[in-house]
């Protein structure tokens, strides 16, 4: 049992001993979360749930979550120490994002005591995987423009809600348990004032889940169609029409992503081979280890890893010292998006013509830099586009004037949602 006043280094030592004794080496699917097919994915899911349970039973789940909800009530520095010790070991990657952050982080801030008591311990035990139901077919970055509607059932005198609409880009919703869902409860108020957040069970009648096939062939992203889904008022989070108060913090926790102090995942620079084939392996396979231009690319990719790691630490230091505002997380989001783009391009460049076609042995050896290049921009789209991050940095970090918009201070039902017709 970890004492509530344990120092960071003492905690680190305890974590190291426990991790070494209880967690095996990292698996390929821990990092990229890509499985060959659904059957393998479901095996990975079951194994992630069991791993989270093992961490929970070992006394290391929810390091920054309050003790009353089954966490340890320790500081971000403790979580970081655990994450550093986790490098090279298996971990329940499917819980990291979005279950712990933003979903559990939002639950913790805005959930009712009953909602927290029901869901946070369940998450920490590995029983509940959460997704965020934010983007809609009509809009990704303009999150507050949600048109999924929630109306009071109004019959039999009860205060249930009926939900209709569609959410999209929801990773792994086809097997996940719960979603945080942003819905419109009032169309007569301006955009940001008529939203409400609900807790939605995914696997229930009225929620139809489709898979979206990406250009690589993988299908982890989903689209949900909600048709007259009836849920009790106890699943409403926060005030009716007060959803955007939650939404802004939700966005913050989303931008924090893996940096969030609620997330357990390895952080470090071990360069361990278990993290998958890197640029060096690609350069070797291409026979370019004595080519100075190739070595410069290898060094550049590694330098970007080191800078990424350093920037994460700086953002955490800024938050703990009170020097940064919460919008500073957009800086990290932009940097990491652009760094990934560059790294994918480097890998592609190093691979040469072999990136065009490959057999399975080669893929096991050096990955698929060609396919990764095709999917390159995902790091600048998923989790909020880098364009939105640039707006946030310019307007909220640097204090530059806001963009003009066509949807402020008018009832949402009058906001143009497409080109004028006729």
């Amino acid at each position, binding site marked *: 049992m970890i004492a509530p006043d344990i120092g960071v280094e003492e905690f680190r030592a305890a974590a190291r001993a426990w991790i070494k004794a209880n967690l095996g080496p990292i698996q390929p699917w821990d990092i990229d979360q890509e499985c060959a097919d659904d059957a393998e994915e479901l095996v990975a899911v079951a194994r992630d749930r069991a791993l989270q349970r093992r961490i929970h039973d070992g006394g290391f789940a929810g390091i920054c979550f309050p003790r009353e909800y089954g966490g340890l009530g320790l500081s971000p520095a403790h979580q970081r120490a655990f994450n550093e010790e986790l490098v090279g070991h298996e971990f329940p990657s499917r819980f990291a994002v979005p279950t712990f952050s933003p979903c559990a982080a939002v639950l913790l801030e805005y959930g009712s005591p009953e909602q927290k008591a029901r869901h946070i311990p369940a998450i920490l035990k590995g029983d509940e995987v959460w997704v965020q139901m934010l983007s809609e077919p009509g809009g990704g970055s303009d999150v507050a423009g949600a048109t999924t509607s929630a109306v009071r059932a109004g019959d039999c005198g009860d205060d249930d809600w009926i939900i209709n609409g569609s959410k999209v880009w929801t990773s792994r919703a086809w097997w996940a348990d719960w979603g945080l869902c942003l819905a419109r409860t009032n169309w007569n108020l301006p955009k940001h004032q008529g939203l409400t957040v609900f807790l939605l069970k995914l696997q229930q009648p009225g929620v139809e889940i489709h898979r979206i096939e990406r250009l690589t062939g993988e299908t982890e992203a989903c689209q949900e169609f909600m048709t007259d889904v009836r849920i009790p008022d106890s699943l409403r989070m926060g005030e009716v029409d007060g959803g955007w108060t939650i939404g802004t913090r939700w966005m913050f926790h989303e931008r924090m992503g893996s940096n969030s102090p609620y997330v357990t995942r390895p952080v470090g620079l071990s360069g361990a081979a278990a993290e998958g084939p890197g640029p060096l392996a690609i350069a070797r396979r291409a026979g370019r280890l004595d080519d100075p231009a190739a070595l410069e690319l290898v060094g550049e990719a*590694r330098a970007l890893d080191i800078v990424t790691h350093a920037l994460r630490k700086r953002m955490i230091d800024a938050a703990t010292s009170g020097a940064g505002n919460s919008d500073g997380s957009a800086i990290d989001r932009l940097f990491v998006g652009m760094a990934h783009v560059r790294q994918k391009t480097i890998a592609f460049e190093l691979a040469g013509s072999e990136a065009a076609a490959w057999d399975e042995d080669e893929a096991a050896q050096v990955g698929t830099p060609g396919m990764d290049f095709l999917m390159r921009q995902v790091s600048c789209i998923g989790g909020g586009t880098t364009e939105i991050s640039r707006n946030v940095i*310019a307007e909220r970090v*640097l204090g530059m004037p806001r963009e003009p918009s066509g949807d402020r201070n008018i009832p949402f039902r009058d906001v143009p949602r497409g080109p004028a017709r006729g």
Partner: protein
Amino acid sequence: MWHNLGSDQELFRDTTARFLEQHVGLAHQRKVLRHDPAGFDPGWWKSGAELGWTMCLVPEAAGGGSVSGRGPTDAALIAYEFGRHAAPGPFVDCNITAAALGRAGGHEAALAALLGGEAVAGHCLGAAPWRRDPAIEIRRDGSDFIISGEVRPVESAGQARWLLVTGASAGGMTQLLVPADAPGIAIRPLKGMDVTRRFFAVGFSGVRLPAAALVGGFARADEAVSRQIAEAAVLLCAEAVGAMDAAFAMTLDYAFQRYTFGRALASYQALKHRFADLKSWLEASHAVSDAAADALADDSPLAIETASAAKAYVGDKGPELAQDCVQLHGGIGVTYEHDLHFFLRRVTVNRLLYGTPAEHRRLIAAIRLREEKAA
């Protein structure tokens, strides 16, 4: 720079900041120091050195020491202020030479003069891990050493009393501390990009030195040189980050002041997004520069690699950021009257010293290959 400094460190940094503002403000550099053959006043340098400028990387037992006990971190704080003020003076080479002497032992008089600011030193980096063909060779002749070759650019060689000479010998690198007026040394001034920093080509035609000139072991200096390059990278990056901060701040300010088509520049999304990109480079440069100093202070196994990553990243983004600041200013940004060029010069010159980004990337790749073999 760090978000969590101790009050001693803040005082140390702020004292230097005030001193630089007072004595080497940009107006003074623009009008006076520009025409000074040395680019700085030796009396001013001595007063500055008394604030602790050259002590941080030198072990306490050798007469050095730092306010926090974390030498590279404290030295980086001073370097940052040098960059933010585009200050003159042979800050990096004096620190690196003092650190080399302090760790190797011997040369007490020279070290004391560097620590006290009574003399300055230049570093002739005539061999480096990324060089296949060294510029300088050092061989033994009986108990003497013979130096031959030419190295450039060497900062402040014309003002230096000593030169730390790094050259290739059979079996490894050698370092010697050489009086700048030793027979056979030719110091030729070069024209350079910085307003106040002077660079030279230094030629050695069979310069003969006694055994006492040795710093460390003959042909055994590879590790010491790597460490010095990492330390220099930390200081050059911290300087560059200071200069980037100054350039970015004045450009952001300009965007609010300057109106065009009836609106502030700051209101254009095309420019806002550029500023956001610059801000992300700036924060990342702070982060990796600090991380490199911390890794040296902690004696981390990743110290050399982190310093190279910083030199590669900041060396790349520093000039790119400063050039974009010029672009955002328009024509005024390339006038001598404006302050911006001082910072553009600083980041551009710093990019080139002690290894370019390309050279440091190759170093990182070499480290990765070595690590892989060891695993």
